[in-house]
C-alpha cells in the first residue's frame, strides 16, 4: 500500500510498494551510510546513558548511607554522574552535527534530482501540471521528508531510553515496573483521542485563517477602489466580521490544544504518587533499597514521556513517506518526446516540411490530420485562424515541444526525431505569447540564449531599433533590473527584450507566438521594427495577432480545424473575400488606420449634433 492522506494527486502520481519506497529512500541514504551508522551508535549510546543518572544516584544514596568506609566508591560514582551528564552533551553534539549534514545532503540530492527531472520534462507535462504544484514537490515535500528523518532520530533516541529504563526497572522491582507499564496504554489512548480532536479543531482554525487571508488579499487590493468611492467603511465591516469569526474558531482551538499536556501531567502525578507509596512499602518489606525506590521515582518521567512522542510519530511517518512518494513520482514521470538520433547540425537552412502529419494532445481529439505544409528556407509564414484551429500546435511541433503520432516532420529534409534536441533548439529562436524574463538585468536577459555575446554587440543591436531610444526608457539602461518574471518593466519592454534575445541569437528558424497585450503606440512601432529585423535574418513561423505582422509575412496560411483552407498574401486573400476576409473582419479590422479614422469621424459627428 502507499501512504495517501486524501491529498489531491496528479495523474502522474503512482503508488510505490513499501519495500520499493524504502529501497528508493535507501539509494539516497547509502552515500552517507558511514555517517548513518555513526549516528545510530550515538543514538543508542545517548539513549542508554540517558537512563543511567537515576541509577547512579540511587547507588550514591545507598553507598553514602552506609558511610565512612566507602569514600572511594562514592567519589567514583559522583564522578561517573558528572562524566555521564557531560557525555550526554557530547553525544548530543556529535549526533546533531551528523544529522545536520546528512539531512542537508540528502535533501540537496533529492531536490536536485527532482529539479533536473522537471526541467527536462516535456512541455506537454508542464502544460498539464501547475508549476506551483511542481515547485511545491521540489521544496515543501522535500522539507516534509527531511522532517521525517529528524523525527526518526528523536523518536529512536526516546525509544531506546524508554527501553533501557524499562529493563532497569524490571530488574530492580518487577511488580512496581509492571504497575508503571500499565500507564503506557492509558497515556497512548489519551494522546490518540486528543490527536483526533486536535486535528479537527486545527483544520477548522486553518480554514478560518484562510478566510481571513482571502479577505485581506481581496480588500487590500480593493482599498484604492474603496477610497475612490469613499466606501472604506463597507469593506472594513466585511473584514471585521471575518476577523472576529476567525478569533472565535481559534479560541476554541486554543481550548482543546491547552488540555492535553495538563492531562498527561496529572496522570504522571498520579503515577508518581502511587509509586511513592507502594515503592516505600516494598522498601519496608526489604525487597528494594531506599536508593532503588528513589531511582524508580526519578525514572518514571523518563519512561512515560517518550511514549507520547512515539504515539504522534506514526502520522509523521505517513506524511514523510507520502512526501517521498510524490517526489519520486515527479522524478519517474514518463516522457513522451523521444529522440531516435543525436545529430548535431552546424547550421540550419531553415527548410521545414510537414508530410501527412497526424497529431493529437494526450487528452482530446485529433488536432492535425494528414497535414501538409512546406516552408522554404528564409520564408516568413504567418498562420491565422480562430482559437482552436491548431496554430499553436504547428509551432510547438516545430520546436519539438510535443510528439506527433503519424506522418513526418523534417527540418532540412532530415527527420526532426533524429536531431539532438538541445542542438536543434540552439538553432531556433522562440518568442512566447507572454514573454518570460528572469530576475536579473536587461543585459543578462538578452544574453540568456547566447551567453557569449559582448555588451558592445548588444548595444549595437539596440541602436538598430528606433535609434536605441527604447533603451533610454529604462532607468539604468542595459543594467536595469527587470524584477522577478520581468515584473519591474512594462509588457512592451518585455516584448522588446524577448525580441532582442532573438536578434542577438540570430537563429535559423524563428517562431513567434504573438502577444495580445496592448502596448502604447510608440513602443508598438519599435516592436514592429525589431520584428522586421528578425524576419530578414530567419525562416519565420508567425502566429500573428497584429495586423502589421500579418501584412509583413511572405505568405499567410489560414487554418481551420487543423487544415489549411486558404493561403496567399494579405492583399490577394483580402481581395478574394473568403475566409481570410472574415477573419480580418473579426480580429484585425479595429487595428487598421481606416477604423481609426472612422472612429474620429463618428465622434465629430456626435459632437456636431450635441454641442456643449
Amino acid at each position, binding site marked *: 500500500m502507499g501512504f495517501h492522506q486524501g491529498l489531491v494527486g496528479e495523474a502522474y502520481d503512482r503508488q510505490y510498494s513499501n519495500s520499493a519506497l524504502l529501497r528508493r529512500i535507501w539509494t539516497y541514504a547509502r552515500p552517507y551510510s558511514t555517517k548513518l551508522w555513526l549516528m545510530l551508535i550515538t543514538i543508542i549510546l545517548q539513549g542508554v546513558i540517558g537512563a543511567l543518572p537515576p541509577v547512579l*544516584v540511587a547507588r*550514591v544514596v545507598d553507598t*553514602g*548511607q552506609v558511610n565512612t568506609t566507602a569514600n572511594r566508591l*562514592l567519589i567514583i560514582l559522583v564522578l561517573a554522574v558528572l562524566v555521564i*551528564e*557531560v557525555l550526554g*552533551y557530547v553525544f548530543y553534539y556529535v549526533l*546533531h552535527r551528523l544529522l545536520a549534514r546528512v539531512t542537508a545532503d540528502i*535533501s*540537496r540530492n533529492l531536490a*536536485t534530482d527532482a529539479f*533536473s527531472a*522537471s*526541467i527536462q520534462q516535456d512541455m506537454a507535462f508542464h502544460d498539464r501540471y501547475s508549476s506551483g504544484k511542481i515547485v511545491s514537490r*521540489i521544496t515543501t515535500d522535500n522539507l516534509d521528508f527531511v522532517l521525517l528523518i529528524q523525527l526518526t532520530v528523536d523518536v529512536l533516541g526516546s525509544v531506546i531510553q524508554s527501553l533501557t529504563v524499562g529493563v532497569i526497572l524490571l530488574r530492580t522491582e518487577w511488580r512496581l515496573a509492571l504497575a508503571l507499564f500499565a500507564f503506557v496504554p492509558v497515556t497512548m489512548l489519551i494522546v490518540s483521542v486528543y490527536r483526533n480532536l486536535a486535528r479537527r479543531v486545527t483544520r477548522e482554525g486553518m480554514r478560518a485563517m484562510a478566510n*481571513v*487571508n482571502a479577505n485581506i488579499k*481581496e480588500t*487590500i487590493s*480593493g482599498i*484604492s*477602489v474603496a477610497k475612490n*468611492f469613499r466606501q*472604506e467603511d463597507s469593506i*472594513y465591516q466585511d473584514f471585521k466580521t471575518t*476577523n*472576529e469569526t476567525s478569533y472565535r474558531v481559534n*479560541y476554541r482551538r486554543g481550548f482543546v490544544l491547552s488540555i492535553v*499536556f495538563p492531562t498527561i501531567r*496529572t496522570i504522571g*502525578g498520579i503515577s508518581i*504518587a502511587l509509586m*511513592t507509596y507502594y515503592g*516505600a*512499602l516494598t522498601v519496608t518489606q526489604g525487597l528494594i533499597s531506599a536508593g532503588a*525506590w*528513589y531511582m524508580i521515582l526519578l525514572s518514571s518521567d523518563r519512561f512515560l514521556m517518550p511514549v507520547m512522542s512515539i504515539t504522534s510519530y506514526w502520522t509523521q511517518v505517513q506524511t514523510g513517506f507520502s512526501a517521498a512518494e510524490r517526489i519520486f513520482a515527479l522524478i519517474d514521470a514518463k516522457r513522451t518526446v523521444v529522440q531516435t538520433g543525436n545529430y548535431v547540425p552546424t547550421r540550419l537552412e531553415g527548410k521545414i516540411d510537414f508530410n501527412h502529419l497526424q497529431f493529437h494532445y494526450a487528452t482530446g481529439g485529433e488536432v492535425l490530420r494528414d497535414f501538409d505544409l512546406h516552408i522554404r528556407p528564409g520564408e516568413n509564414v504567418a498562420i491565422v485562424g480562430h482559437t482552436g484551429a491548431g496554430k499553436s500546435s504547428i509551432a510547438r511541433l516545430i520546436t519539438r515541444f510535443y510528439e506527433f503520432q503519424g506522418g513526418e516532420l523534417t527540418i532540412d529534409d532530415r527527420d526532426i526525431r533524429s536531431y539532438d*534536441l538541445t542542438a536543434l*533548439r*540552439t538553432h531556433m*529562436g522562440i518568442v512566447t505569447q507572454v514573454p*518570460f524574463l*528572469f*530576475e536579473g538585468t536587461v543585459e543578462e536577459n538578452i544574453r540568456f540564449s547566447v*551567453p557569449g555575446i559582448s555588451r558592445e554587440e548588444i548595444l549595437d543591436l539596440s541602436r538598430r531599433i528606433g535609434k536605441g531610444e527604447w533603451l533610454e*526608457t529604462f532607468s539604468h539602461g542595459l543594467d536595469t533590473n527587470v524584477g*522577478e518574471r520581468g515584473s519591474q518593466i512594462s509588457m512592451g519592454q518585455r516584448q522588446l527584450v524577448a525580441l532582442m534575445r532573438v536578434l542577438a541569437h540570430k537563429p535559423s528558424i524563428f517562431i513567434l507566438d504573438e502577444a495580445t*497585450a*496592448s502596448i*502604447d*503606440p510608440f513602443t*508598438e512601432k519599435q516592436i514592429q*521594427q525589431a520584428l*522586421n529585423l528578425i524576419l530578414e535574418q530567419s525562416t519565420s513561423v508567425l502566429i500573428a495577432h497584429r495586423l502589421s505582422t500579418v501584412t509583413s509575412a511572405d505568405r499567410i496560411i489560414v487554418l481551420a480545424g487543423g487544415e489549411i483552407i486558404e493561403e496567399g498574401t494579405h492583399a490577394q486573400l483580402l481581395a478574394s473575400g473568403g475566409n481570410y476576409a472574415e477573419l480580418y473582419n473579426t480580429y484585425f479590422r*479595429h487595428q487598421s488606420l481606416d477604423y*481609426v479614422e472612422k472612429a474620429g469621424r*463618428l465622434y*465629430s459627428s456626435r459632437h456636431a449634433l*450635441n454641442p456643449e
Partner: protein
Amino acid sequence: MAISEFSTPFRYKTDKSSPIRWLWSHTIHLWPMFVVAMLGAIGNAALASVPPLEFGTAYDTLISGTPLMHVVLRAAVIIFISQSARGVFQFFRNFGFEVTAQQIERNVREEFYINLLGKSMTFHSLQSIGDLMARATNDIREVNYIFSPGINMVFGSINFLFIPITVGAAIHPSLILTPVIFLVLYFLSIARYLKILEPVTRNVRLYFGALNSRLAEDIDGIETVKSAAQEDSEIALFKANIQAYRDTSVQQGDIEARFLPMLLLALAMGFGLMHALLLVRQGAIGMGSVLTYFSSLSLLGFPTNTSIRSYSQISLGLAGARRLLSVMNMENNLDKNDEGHAGKLRGEVEFSHVSFAYTSETATLKDINLVVYPGQTVAVVGQTGSGKTTLARLINRTYDPDQGSVRIDGVDLRDWSLDSLRSQISIIEQDIFLFSKTIAENIAFGKPGATQEEILVAARKAQAENFINALPEGFETVIGERGVTLSGGQRQRLALARAFLTDPRILILDDSTSAIDSQTEDEIQKAIMLAAEGRTTFIITHRLSQIRWADLIVVMKEGLISSIGTHEELMDTSESYRNIFTEVQ
C-alpha cells in the same frame, strides 16, 4: 491627532514608539487573560517543587530504621494533590497565553487594517500589495507566536530556574551556588547563542528565498528555458543555489548542536550532586536533602530544552512587530480637510508649472502646464514610465505636486474638501479590481442604495448588459475566486457601469486592455464615448482610435509634455506622432 483619510477609532490607544511598548500597550488591555496565564505559570512552577521536597521527607523516614508509613502516605497524598492542582495551573497557563495570543492577533490585525484604510492613496499606490498582504498575514501570525508558544514557554520555564535556588536555600544556604551560577551562565549563553544564530538563520532564509524564486521562475518560464536550450545551465545554477543553501543549513545545524545551556545543565547536575554530598560528609545535611536537591536540579531541564526554540520565536515575532510598526508609522501626508471648499464641480482642470517626484532622485513630472475645459475629452499618450498615470493621479489628489499647483474650477486642490473632491471624480484603474460579490453589487459599489433599474441602465450604457445576461445567473452572478472569471474587456465595462451610476464630473480612465476581436473593440469604443459625454474625461490610452477622436491630445515623454494639441495640429507638428499613424513597410 494623527492625520488620516479614514477614521474609525480602534478599541483603545496604543503606543507605537517601539515593538515592545506597542505589544505591551495591547497586552494591558487584555489583562484578565494575561493575569490568568501568569498566575498559571507561577502556580505550575511552584507546585513542581513539591515532589522533590516530599521525596526527601519520605526517604528520611524510610531510612530511619523505624519507617513511619503514615508519613510516606502523607507525602504521597501531597504529591497527588499538588500534581493534580499543577495540571489545572498548567491548563490556565497554556489556555491563558493561547487566548491572549489570539486576542492580540485579532486586535493587531484590526488595528493594522484600520491604519491601512486611513492611509492616503499615495501610500497605497506606492506600496506593493503582496508586501502588505505578507505583513497582514504572516507578520501578524508571528506576533501571535510571541505569546504562544513564545512567552508561554519562556516565562513558564524561567520560573523553574528559581526552584533549585529556593529549595537549595531551604536545605543549606551554600547550595544556591550551583543554581545561581547556572542561572547567570544560562542567560549569558542564550544571549550569545541568539546573537550567533541570528545572522546564520537570516542567511538560510535568504538562500532559500533565492533558490526558491529561481526555481519557480524556471518552472514558470520552462518554455523560455527549453527554447533557449538552457536546461543544463539552469540545472548547474540550481545546484549552485542549493549548495549555498545546504552549506548555511549545516552551519545553522552546527550552532544548534553546540547549544551550551545543555552542557551547563550537565555540569550543574554533576557539581550540584557533588556539593550536596560534601555537605553530607560534613554532617551539615541529611541524605534525604541530597535527593530533594538533586530532584530540584533536574527541573532545570525544562527551561534548557524549551530555550532552543522559544527565544528565537520571540525575536522573530518582534521582527514581525517592527515590520508592522514601520508601515503603521509611515507618514500620511494628506488629510481629509473637511472644512475645505465643497460644492458641485464643473470640471475645469488646470495644471500650472507642476513638478512631482516619487523619490528624491528623479522627477516623474517636470513643469507641466495644461488647461482642460469642462466636458473636454483628453487623450494622454506616451510610453510606459513617461508619467501618464502620475499626471492623472494628481487630478484626484492621490498625490500633491512638489511644485506648482493643480486647480479644479479655479480652486487649488489643497483647498478642496477631500470628500467633496473625490466623490465627484472617478478613476478606472489599469488593473480593474472587482470584489468577490455579485455583478450587481460590484456595479453599485459606489452607490450602495442603487435600485435594480439604475443598475440596469448603467450596465446598458456601459455596453455590458449583453454579456451580463449571458452569464449563468445574470446580474446575480458572483465574480472572482469562487465565481466566474471575466475578460479584461468585460471588467472594464463593469467599471464603466460603476462610473455611470455615480455620475462623476471628472472621469479618469486608465485604458490599457486590448480587445482580442473587433466586435468587443466596437463595444468598448461606444461605452467610452458615452461615458465621456457631458463630463471632463481623461483617457490614458494605447488605442489609436481614441486618440483620434479626443478633443485634446497630450503626448508625454520622460515626464514632460512633448507635444499637445488636436489630432490635426499634432499631425502637422510632431514627427513621432505622425509615425504612429503611418503604416510600417
